[in-house]
């Protein structure tokens, strides 16, 4: 008996020594950041969907990309919006090489390299990991509607669907499905640019749980900053930057033509003909939506009966310099080749 107890005790001690402390067992590249944070004591957000089914995720993906899906009862749901889908303005993939900063140039380069649309809305990739939405200056455009949306992902989806897309409110099962799909796009440990020492700190015991949470959160932005800016005072002169037509071509193709394509969201098609370039160039100085400065910086407001809605590009989504890139391309498309 004593012998058995000694063997058992030895094995127990050995096994305990081999098991790393706490969440270290799950600290690998595929571990969702949210899981790690919850293990460390981070409160779970209201928009959390625990263990979503593959069916829910698929329904959510179809609503996001196609505007409708098959309801749980097998019927075809109606389009959320007659005019737009979520992907009219949002990507579903990573957009930034560095998740800790707003770097428009790096984002454009990443988009051009990976053929990703360059859009006004924030990507749904990692959307559930954020803590606020419709941030900063969005209150200037949507007023009190933003107050609920900025603190709730569900309310943000609702605002997007009913106001921006001029559609209908999502039914409960649709909202659950969309959130389930968003959770399938959550960030994972491998997505963060963690250094070796940071990984050791997270795996070790030198940091408290609160410090580990802070360290993880320092590796990505918890919100998508939004700064509204005005068109240049003198649109003939533009912003005081030199434009690069090659980069402008990237913005034109990945940004403008995302919606201004044949049979796209907009009735106004921007093709690659001189007719279009000349038309855009001629209207640059205008004080109307026809000017690229006006429409990009101010967008349009959704109106009943569908005045075409175009979200504007915030400073973070398109810098003044990048707008000059676009202008340079429109004025000299031949220089982009």
């Amino acid at each position: 008996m004593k012998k058995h107890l000694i063997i058992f005790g030895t094995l127990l001690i050995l096994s305990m020594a081999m098991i790393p402390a706490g969440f270290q067992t799950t600290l690998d590249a595929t571990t969702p950041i949210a899981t790690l944070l919850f293990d460390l004591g981070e409160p779970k957000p209201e928009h959390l969907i625990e263990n979503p089914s593959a069916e829910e995720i698929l329904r959510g993906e179809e609503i996001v990309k196609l505007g409708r899906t098959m309801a749980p009862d097998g019927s075809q749901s109606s389009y959320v919006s007659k005019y737009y889908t979520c992907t009219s303005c949002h990507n579903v993939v990573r957009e930034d090489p560095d998740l800790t900063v707003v770097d428009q140039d790096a984002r454009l380069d990443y988009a051009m390299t990976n053929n990703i649309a360059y859009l006004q809305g924030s990507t749904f990739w990692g959307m559930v990991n954020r803590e606020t939405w419709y941030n900063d200056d969005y209150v200037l455009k949507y007023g009190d509607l933003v107050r609920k949306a900025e603190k709730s992902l569900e309310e943000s989806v609702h605002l997007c669907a009913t106001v921006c897309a001029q559609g209908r409110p999502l039914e409960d099962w649709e909202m659950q499905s969309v959130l389930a799909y968003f959770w399938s796009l959550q960030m994972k440990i491998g997505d963060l640019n963690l250094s070796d020492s940071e990984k050791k700190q997270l795996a070790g015991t030198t940091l408290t749980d609160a410090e580990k949470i802070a360290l993880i959160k320092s590796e990505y932005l918890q919100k998508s900053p939004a700064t509204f800016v005005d068109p240049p005072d003198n649109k003939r002169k533009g912003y005081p930057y030199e434009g690069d037509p090659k980069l402008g071509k990237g913005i034109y193709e990945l940004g403008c033509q995302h919606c201004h394509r044949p049979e796209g969201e907009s009735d106004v098609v921007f093709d690659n003909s001189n007719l279009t370039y000349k038309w855009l160039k001629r209207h640059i100085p205008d004080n109307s939506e026809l000017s690229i400065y006006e429409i990009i910086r101010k967008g349009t407001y959704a109106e009943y009966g569908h005045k075409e809605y175009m979200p504007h590009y915030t400073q973070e989504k398109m810098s003044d310099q990048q707008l000059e890139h676009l202008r340079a391309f429109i004025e000299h498309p031949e220089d982009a080749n």
Partner: protein
Amino acid sequence: MYKHLIMRPILLIAILLLTTTAYSQTEYAYETFDDTRIVNGHSVETNMEGVLTFIISHRFGTLNLGAYEVWGLDNATMRMGLDYGITGNLMVGIGRSTFEKTADGYLKYRLLAQSSGDRTVPVTLTLLGTTALKTLRRFDGIDLTLQQKLSYTSQVLISRKFSPRFSAQIMPTYLHRNLVEDDEQNDIFSLGFAGQYQLSKNWSLSMEYYATPGSDLPDGSGPSPEYSQSMALGVQIDTKGHVFQLHFGNSRGMIEKFFVAETSGKWQDGDIHFGFNITRDFTVKGRRVR
């Protein structure tokens, strides 16, 4: 249950197509013409799925009526119509003209779309079938049967966009009228020609001509007036959701039966009608993402 099994794969395929579109090397011609109408006749264009278009057209009197009639403006005929895109390639329409109190309807289907790249198709080809019902009461008091009031047109619309500025179309046309005067033909074959030249992004010129054989048109010696071939020139302004078409032509009627076979005006005599078409699009339902 079964619907679910059928629809889900369709939606999955749609997502797949959406995802792979960026890699497709086929480029389709678009906006070969600015509108579904050129002047009087149809172009190869169809409405997008779920888009309802209200179209209102006027044709005024002839310019040679002079100042007293404000060169024809005192004397207008009108057509109001609704067009609807059932799919991106199939559309239907109805209309009512004050000219001979005629109601009309049509079905239009785009069979081929001009494309280049992996799938090269040199032209866009659209089929059109129309029916017209003349409801104007006869002055001689004879009541016509429904069948006698009807006429039909079939057209094959073949177009090519040669450049961002220039598109052309030919329209082999077959017109059948159930009831005609003694000096008219029940069946008429005509060949239409049309073109559009883009002056700028949203301004363009257009022309339309129907080469109806002279032997099929009355010469004025019988009960019918002398009829001519239809020709029209126009300018179009394309704005968001609206197309304005202003034109001059020798036809008064705005449906096939009238301008293919019953054009009474002659350009050389100044029988030129000023007219316009104005369209307004309404998106009434969502559509599949392309």
